[in-house]
Protein backbone atom coordinates (compact mmCIF):
# COMPACT_ATOMS: atom_id res chain seq x y z
CA UNK A 1 0.00 0.00 0.00
CA UNK A 2 1.41 3.40 -0.93
CA UNK A 3 1.56 6.38 1.38
CA UNK A 4 -1.37 7.97 -0.42
CA UNK A 5 -3.47 4.84 -0.04
CA UNK A 6 -2.64 4.72 3.67
CA UNK A 7 -3.61 8.37 4.04
CA UNK A 8 -6.90 7.64 2.31
CA UNK A 9 -7.63 4.65 4.51
CA UNK A 10 -6.97 6.75 7.62
CA UNK A 11 -9.12 9.68 6.58
CA UNK A 12 -11.70 10.61 9.17
CA UNK A 13 -14.72 11.47 7.05
CA UNK A 14 -17.82 13.14 8.43
CA UNK A 15 -20.42 10.63 7.25
CA UNK A 16 -24.05 11.43 7.97
CA UNK A 17 -25.30 9.51 10.99
CA UNK A 18 -26.72 6.13 10.08
CA UNK A 19 -30.46 6.23 10.72
CA UNK A 20 -32.35 3.62 12.68
CA UNK A 21 -34.12 1.08 10.60
CA UNK A 22 -37.08 -0.93 11.83
CA UNK A 23 -38.25 -4.19 10.46
CA UNK A 24 -41.64 -5.62 9.95
CA UNK A 25 -42.31 -9.20 9.27
CA UNK A 26 -43.49 -9.81 5.71
CA UNK A 27 -47.13 -10.68 5.33
CA UNK A 28 -48.01 -13.63 3.20
CA UNK A 29 -51.70 -13.19 2.64
CA UNK A 30 -53.58 -10.63 0.65
CA UNK A 31 -55.33 -7.77 2.41
CA UNK A 32 -58.86 -8.78 3.26
CA UNK A 33 -61.28 -5.96 2.54
CA UNK A 34 -62.38 -5.93 6.13
CA UNK A 35 -58.85 -5.29 7.34
CA UNK A 36 -58.45 -2.42 4.94
CA UNK A 37 -61.67 -0.90 6.14
CA UNK A 38 -60.62 -1.35 9.71
CA UNK A 39 -57.35 0.51 9.53
CA UNK A 40 -57.09 2.62 12.59
CA UNK A 41 -56.27 6.24 12.59
CA UNK A 42 -54.65 8.24 15.28
CA UNK A 43 -54.44 11.97 15.23
CA UNK A 44 -51.64 12.97 17.49
CA UNK A 45 -51.28 16.39 18.98
CA UNK A 46 -48.26 18.18 17.62
CA UNK A 47 -47.37 21.77 18.32
CA UNK A 48 -50.12 24.33 18.43
CA UNK A 49 -49.90 27.02 15.78
CA UNK A 50 -52.25 27.90 12.91
CA UNK A 51 -53.87 25.88 10.12
CA UNK A 52 -56.19 24.08 12.50
CA UNK A 53 -56.58 20.44 11.58
CA UNK A 54 -53.88 20.47 8.89
CA UNK A 55 -51.90 17.27 8.66
CA UNK A 56 -48.24 17.98 9.24
CA UNK A 57 -46.98 14.49 8.68
CA UNK A 58 -48.16 10.94 8.95
CA UNK A 59 -46.68 7.55 9.36
CA UNK A 60 -47.83 3.97 9.75
CA UNK A 61 -47.18 1.36 12.34
CA UNK A 62 -48.81 -1.98 11.71
CA UNK A 63 -52.46 -1.30 11.06
CA UNK A 64 -52.35 2.18 12.48
CA UNK A 65 -51.95 5.41 10.64
CA UNK A 66 -50.66 8.25 12.73
CA UNK A 67 -51.17 11.80 11.65
CA UNK A 68 -49.57 14.78 13.24
CA UNK A 69 -51.86 17.74 13.17
CA UNK A 70 -51.78 21.30 14.41
CA UNK A 71 -54.75 20.74 16.66
CA UNK A 72 -56.84 17.74 17.56
CA UNK A 73 -60.06 17.06 15.70
CA UNK A 74 -63.28 16.94 17.67
CA UNK A 75 -63.83 13.67 19.51
CA UNK A 76 -65.84 12.10 22.29
CA UNK A 77 -64.82 11.64 25.89
CA UNK A 78 -65.61 7.99 26.55
CA UNK A 79 -64.43 5.59 29.19
CA UNK A 80 -62.33 2.65 28.12
CA UNK A 81 -65.15 0.32 29.05
CA UNK A 82 -67.40 2.18 26.62
CA UNK A 83 -64.72 1.73 23.98
CA UNK A 84 -64.54 -2.04 24.09
CA UNK A 85 -67.17 -2.91 21.49
CA UNK A 86 -69.39 -5.99 21.59
CA UNK A 87 -68.52 -9.05 23.68
CA UNK A 88 -67.36 -12.12 21.74
CA UNK A 89 -65.94 -15.54 22.57
CA UNK A 90 -62.25 -16.43 22.44
CA UNK A 91 -62.99 -18.69 19.48
CA UNK A 92 -64.48 -15.74 17.60
CA UNK A 93 -61.45 -13.69 18.58
CA UNK A 94 -59.16 -16.42 17.24
CA UNK A 95 -60.97 -16.36 13.91
CA UNK A 96 -60.63 -12.58 13.67
CA UNK A 97 -56.99 -12.52 14.62
CA UNK A 98 -56.03 -15.80 12.89
CA UNK A 99 -54.50 -16.85 16.19
CA UNK A 100 -55.60 -16.90 19.83
CA UNK A 101 -55.92 -13.63 21.69
CA UNK A 102 -52.81 -13.08 23.79
CA UNK A 103 -54.67 -13.27 27.08
CA UNK A 104 -56.78 -16.17 28.29
CA UNK A 105 -59.46 -16.04 30.95
CA UNK A 106 -60.60 -12.52 30.20
CA UNK A 107 -63.76 -11.32 28.51
CA UNK A 108 -62.91 -10.19 25.00
CA UNK A 109 -64.74 -7.65 22.87
CA UNK A 110 -64.85 -6.85 19.21
CA UNK A 111 -64.82 -3.51 17.46
CA UNK A 112 -64.43 -4.02 13.73
CA UNK A 113 -61.54 -6.42 13.37
CA UNK A 114 -59.98 -5.30 16.64
CA UNK A 115 -60.26 -7.54 19.69
CA UNK A 116 -59.89 -5.92 23.10
CA UNK A 117 -59.93 -6.68 26.79
CA UNK A 118 -59.88 -4.47 29.84
CA UNK A 119 -56.96 -5.24 32.14
CA UNK A 120 -56.62 -4.45 35.79
CA UNK A 121 -55.69 -0.88 36.54
CA UNK A 122 -57.95 0.38 33.78
CA UNK A 123 -55.68 -0.53 30.88
CA UNK A 124 -57.23 -1.32 27.52
CA UNK A 125 -55.40 -4.00 25.54
CA UNK A 126 -56.30 -4.45 21.88
CA UNK A 127 -55.14 -6.61 19.02
CA UNK A 128 -55.87 -5.85 15.39
CA UNK A 129 -55.16 -8.33 12.65
CA UNK A 130 -53.56 -6.56 9.72
CA UNK A 131 -51.84 -9.54 8.15
CA UNK A 132 -51.70 -9.74 4.40
CA UNK A 133 -50.44 -6.22 3.87
CA UNK A 134 -47.38 -5.56 1.78
CA UNK A 135 -43.98 -6.25 3.22
CA UNK A 136 -42.76 -3.05 4.74
CA UNK A 137 -39.73 -1.73 6.50
CA UNK A 138 -40.29 1.64 7.99
CA UNK A 139 -37.99 4.10 9.62
CA UNK A 140 -38.50 5.51 13.07
CA UNK A 141 -39.44 9.14 13.31
CA UNK A 142 -37.48 10.82 16.02
CA UNK A 143 -37.91 14.09 17.78
CA UNK A 144 -41.67 14.19 17.43
CA UNK A 145 -43.40 15.96 20.26
CA UNK A 146 -45.29 13.52 22.41
CA UNK A 147 -44.29 10.52 20.32
CA UNK A 148 -41.35 8.35 21.19
CA UNK A 149 -40.03 5.26 19.49
CA UNK A 150 -39.12 2.44 21.85
CA UNK A 151 -38.05 -1.15 21.37
CA UNK A 152 -39.73 -4.03 23.10
CA UNK A 153 -36.88 -6.14 21.83
CA UNK A 154 -34.41 -5.87 19.01
CA UNK A 155 -36.90 -6.74 16.33
CA UNK A 156 -40.04 -5.16 17.73
CA UNK A 157 -40.28 -1.43 17.25
CA UNK A 158 -42.99 0.33 19.16
CA UNK A 159 -44.31 3.83 19.59
CA UNK A 160 -45.19 5.45 22.85
CA UNK A 161 -47.76 8.23 22.75
CA UNK A 162 -47.38 10.07 26.01
CA UNK A 163 -49.86 12.82 25.30
CA UNK A 164 -53.59 12.96 24.94
CA UNK A 165 -54.57 12.24 21.38
CA UNK A 166 -57.59 11.36 19.32
CA UNK A 167 -58.16 7.73 18.54
CA UNK A 168 -60.52 6.48 15.87
CA UNK A 169 -61.21 2.83 16.56
CA UNK A 170 -62.80 0.56 13.98
CA UNK A 171 -66.59 1.00 13.80
CA UNK A 172 -66.70 3.40 16.75
CA UNK A 173 -66.65 7.21 16.82
CA UNK A 174 -63.44 9.12 17.43
CA UNK A 175 -62.56 9.53 21.08
CA UNK A 176 -59.85 11.07 23.20
CA UNK A 177 -57.21 8.60 24.33
CA UNK A 178 -54.59 8.68 27.04
CA UNK A 179 -51.06 7.32 27.02
CA UNK A 180 -50.70 4.50 24.53
CA UNK A 181 -48.08 1.99 23.49
CA UNK A 182 -48.43 0.54 19.98
CA UNK A 183 -46.37 -2.21 18.39
CA UNK A 184 -46.72 -4.72 15.61
CA UNK A 185 -45.70 -8.33 15.27
CA UNK A 186 -46.63 -11.16 12.96
CA UNK A 187 -49.36 -9.20 11.25
CA UNK A 188 -51.02 -8.15 14.49
CA UNK A 189 -51.02 -4.57 15.72
CA UNK A 190 -51.07 -4.42 19.51
CA UNK A 191 -52.17 -1.50 21.60
CA UNK A 192 -52.10 -0.75 25.31
CA UNK A 193 -53.88 2.36 26.49
CA UNK A 194 -54.63 3.84 29.85
CA UNK A 195 -55.02 7.19 31.49
CA UNK A 196 -52.04 7.49 33.79
CA UNK A 197 -50.32 4.53 32.13
CA UNK A 198 -46.56 5.01 32.32
CA UNK A 199 -44.12 3.85 29.67
CA UNK A 200 -42.43 1.55 32.16
CA UNK A 201 -45.69 -0.16 33.08
CA UNK A 202 -46.75 -0.36 29.45
CA UNK A 203 -43.50 -2.07 28.49
CA UNK A 204 -43.78 -4.43 31.45
CA UNK A 205 -47.31 -5.34 30.34
CA UNK A 206 -46.32 -5.61 26.68
CA UNK A 207 -43.31 -7.89 27.03
CA UNK A 208 -45.23 -11.08 27.82
CA UNK A 209 -47.91 -10.17 25.27
CA UNK A 210 -45.76 -9.63 22.18
Amino acid at each position, binding site marked *: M*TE*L*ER*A*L*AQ*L*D*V*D*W*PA*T*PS*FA*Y*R*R*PQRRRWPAVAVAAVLALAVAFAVPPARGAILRFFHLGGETVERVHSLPRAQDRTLRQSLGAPITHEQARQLLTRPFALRGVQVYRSGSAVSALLSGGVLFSELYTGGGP*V*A*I*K*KFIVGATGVRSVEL*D*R*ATPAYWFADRHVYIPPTLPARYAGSTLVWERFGITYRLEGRGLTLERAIALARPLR
Partner: protein
Amino acid sequence: MEERGLVSHAQRGDEHAFAALVRPHLEMSYRVAYVITGSAAEAEDAAQDALLKAWRALGRFRAGEPFRPWLLRIVANEARNRRRSAGRRLRLALRAAAEPVAADDHDSRALIEALNELPEDAQAVLAYRYLLGLSEQETAVVLGVALGTVKSRTSRALERLRELYD
Protein backbone atom coordinates in the same frame (compact mmCIF):
# COMPACT_ATOMS: atom_id res chain seq x y z
CA MET B 1 -25.31 -17.43 15.81
CA GLU B 2 -23.09 -17.58 12.71
CA GLU B 3 -24.08 -15.80 9.50
CA ARG B 4 -24.95 -19.07 7.84
CA GLY B 5 -27.34 -19.98 10.64
CA LEU B 6 -28.92 -16.55 10.58
CA VAL B 7 -29.45 -16.80 6.83
CA SER B 8 -31.05 -20.19 7.25
CA HIS B 9 -33.40 -18.95 9.98
CA ALA B 10 -34.23 -15.75 8.11
CA GLN B 11 -35.03 -17.73 4.98
CA ARG B 12 -37.60 -19.62 7.02
CA GLY B 13 -39.25 -16.32 8.00
CA ASP B 14 -37.50 -15.55 11.28
CA GLU B 15 -37.53 -11.76 11.54
CA HIS B 16 -35.13 -11.75 14.49
CA ALA B 17 -32.62 -13.64 12.41
CA PHE B 18 -33.05 -11.22 9.54
CA ALA B 19 -32.57 -8.23 11.83
CA ALA B 20 -29.46 -9.82 13.32
CA LEU B 21 -28.19 -10.69 9.87
CA VAL B 22 -28.41 -7.17 8.44
CA ARG B 23 -27.60 -5.21 11.59
CA PRO B 24 -23.80 -5.37 11.18
CA HIS B 25 -24.16 -4.10 7.62
CA LEU B 26 -26.57 -1.20 8.12
CA GLU B 27 -23.92 1.46 8.41
CA MET B 28 -22.05 0.19 5.38
CA SER B 29 -25.28 -0.09 3.40
CA TYR B 30 -26.22 3.45 4.26
CA ARG B 31 -22.80 4.83 3.35
CA VAL B 32 -22.70 2.98 0.06
CA ALA B 33 -26.09 4.47 -0.76
CA TYR B 34 -24.79 7.88 0.31
CA VAL B 35 -21.78 7.64 -2.01
CA ILE B 36 -24.13 6.86 -4.89
CA THR B 37 -26.89 9.36 -4.20
CA GLY B 38 -24.88 12.15 -2.59
CA SER B 39 -27.85 12.80 -0.32
CA ALA B 40 -28.44 11.62 3.25
CA ALA B 41 -32.21 11.50 2.78
CA GLU B 42 -32.03 9.64 -0.52
CA ALA B 43 -29.51 7.26 0.97
CA GLU B 44 -31.79 6.52 3.88
CA ASP B 45 -34.73 5.77 1.62
CA ALA B 46 -32.58 3.70 -0.71
CA ALA B 47 -31.16 1.67 2.15
CA GLN B 48 -34.62 1.07 3.61
CA ASP B 49 -36.06 -0.05 0.33
CA ALA B 50 -33.03 -2.21 -0.28
CA LEU B 51 -33.54 -3.93 3.08
CA LEU B 52 -37.09 -4.63 2.10
CA LYS B 53 -35.99 -6.07 -1.22
CA ALA B 54 -33.30 -8.10 0.49
CA TRP B 55 -35.92 -9.62 2.77
CA ARG B 56 -38.09 -10.47 -0.20
CA ALA B 57 -35.20 -11.88 -2.18
CA LEU B 58 -33.66 -13.82 0.67
CA GLY B 59 -35.05 -17.09 -0.61
CA ARG B 60 -32.81 -16.74 -3.65
CA PHE B 61 -29.68 -16.12 -1.62
CA ARG B 62 -27.34 -19.06 -1.99
CA ALA B 63 -26.28 -20.54 1.33
CA GLY B 64 -22.58 -20.43 1.98
CA GLU B 65 -21.91 -17.27 0.02
CA PRO B 66 -20.91 -14.11 1.89
CA PHE B 67 -23.96 -12.06 2.79
CA ARG B 68 -22.52 -8.55 2.71
CA PRO B 69 -21.71 -8.31 -1.02
CA TRP B 70 -25.14 -9.72 -1.79
CA LEU B 71 -26.81 -7.08 0.37
CA LEU B 72 -24.60 -4.28 -0.92
CA ARG B 73 -25.44 -5.18 -4.50
CA ILE B 74 -29.13 -4.68 -3.69
CA VAL B 75 -28.39 -1.42 -1.88
CA ALA B 76 -26.28 -0.09 -4.76
CA ASN B 77 -28.91 -1.03 -7.34
CA GLU B 78 -31.63 0.64 -5.31
CA ALA B 79 -29.54 3.78 -4.83
CA ARG B 80 -28.70 3.95 -8.54
CA ASN B 81 -32.36 3.52 -9.44
CA ARG B 82 -33.30 6.35 -7.13
CA ARG B 83 -30.60 8.58 -8.53
CA ARG B 84 -31.73 7.76 -12.06
CA SER B 85 -35.40 8.33 -11.39
CA ALA B 86 -34.65 11.61 -9.61
CA GLY B 87 -33.15 12.76 -12.90
CA ARG B 88 -30.37 14.62 -11.17
CA ARG B 89 -27.17 13.80 -9.43
CA LEU B 90 -26.13 15.45 -6.23
CA ARG B 91 -22.39 15.65 -6.23
CA LEU B 92 -20.98 13.73 -3.30
CA ALA B 93 -19.28 16.27 -1.05
CA LEU B 94 -17.05 14.57 1.49
CA ARG B 95 -16.07 16.46 4.60
CA ALA B 96 -13.49 15.96 7.31
CA ALA B 97 -14.94 14.72 10.58
CA ALA B 98 -13.57 17.54 12.73
CA GLU B 99 -12.00 20.95 12.51
CA PRO B 100 -8.28 20.67 11.82
CA VAL B 101 -6.18 21.04 14.95
CA ALA B 102 -2.84 19.73 13.78
CA ALA B 103 -0.70 19.73 10.66
CA ASP B 104 -1.85 16.21 9.81
CA ASP B 105 -5.44 17.37 9.96
CA HIS B 106 -4.71 20.08 7.45
CA ASP B 107 -3.29 17.37 5.20
CA SER B 108 -6.47 15.36 5.68
CA ARG B 109 -8.54 18.32 4.71
CA ALA B 110 -6.50 18.88 1.58
CA LEU B 111 -6.83 15.22 0.70
CA ILE B 112 -10.60 15.36 1.09
CA GLU B 113 -10.74 18.48 -1.05
CA ALA B 114 -8.75 16.65 -3.70
CA LEU B 115 -11.13 13.71 -3.47
CA ASN B 116 -14.04 16.05 -4.01
CA GLU B 117 -12.44 17.37 -7.17
CA LEU B 118 -12.16 13.93 -8.75
CA PRO B 119 -14.57 12.80 -11.44
CA GLU B 120 -17.47 10.80 -10.03
CA ASP B 121 -16.23 7.37 -11.04
CA ALA B 122 -12.82 7.99 -9.57
CA GLN B 123 -14.22 9.45 -6.37
CA ALA B 124 -16.60 6.54 -5.92
CA VAL B 125 -14.04 3.78 -6.43
CA LEU B 126 -11.66 5.38 -3.94
CA ALA B 127 -14.48 5.97 -1.46
CA TYR B 128 -15.47 2.31 -1.59
CA ARG B 129 -11.96 0.92 -1.48
CA TYR B 130 -10.31 3.19 1.08
CA LEU B 131 -12.90 5.21 2.97
CA LEU B 132 -15.35 2.36 3.42
CA GLY B 133 -12.76 -0.40 3.27
CA LEU B 134 -14.59 -2.60 0.77
CA SER B 135 -12.60 -5.32 -0.90
CA GLU B 136 -11.98 -5.18 -4.64
CA GLN B 137 -14.59 -7.91 -5.08
CA GLU B 138 -17.15 -5.98 -3.06
CA THR B 139 -16.32 -2.78 -4.91
CA ALA B 140 -16.88 -4.59 -8.19
CA VAL B 141 -20.25 -5.77 -6.95
CA VAL B 142 -21.28 -2.31 -5.76
CA LEU B 143 -20.13 -0.63 -8.96
CA GLY B 144 -21.59 -3.37 -11.12
CA VAL B 145 -18.34 -3.77 -13.04
CA ALA B 146 -15.72 -6.49 -13.52
CA LEU B 147 -12.93 -6.97 -11.01
CA GLY B 148 -10.36 -5.88 -13.62
CA THR B 149 -12.24 -2.64 -14.10
CA VAL B 150 -12.06 -1.94 -10.38
CA LYS B 151 -8.29 -2.45 -10.45
CA SER B 152 -7.71 -0.20 -13.44
CA ARG B 153 -10.17 2.41 -12.25
CA THR B 154 -8.56 2.48 -8.81
CA SER B 155 -5.12 2.87 -10.29
CA ARG B 156 -6.18 5.75 -12.51
CA ALA B 157 -8.09 7.39 -9.68
CA LEU B 158 -5.06 7.24 -7.39
CA GLU B 159 -2.92 8.79 -10.07
CA ARG B 160 -5.36 11.60 -10.58
CA LEU B 161 -5.69 12.12 -6.85
CA ARG B 162 -1.94 12.30 -6.44
CA GLU B 163 -1.78 15.03 -9.07
CA LEU B 164 -4.45 17.04 -7.31
CA TYR B 165 -3.07 16.47 -3.84
CA ASP B 166 0.61 17.10 -4.49
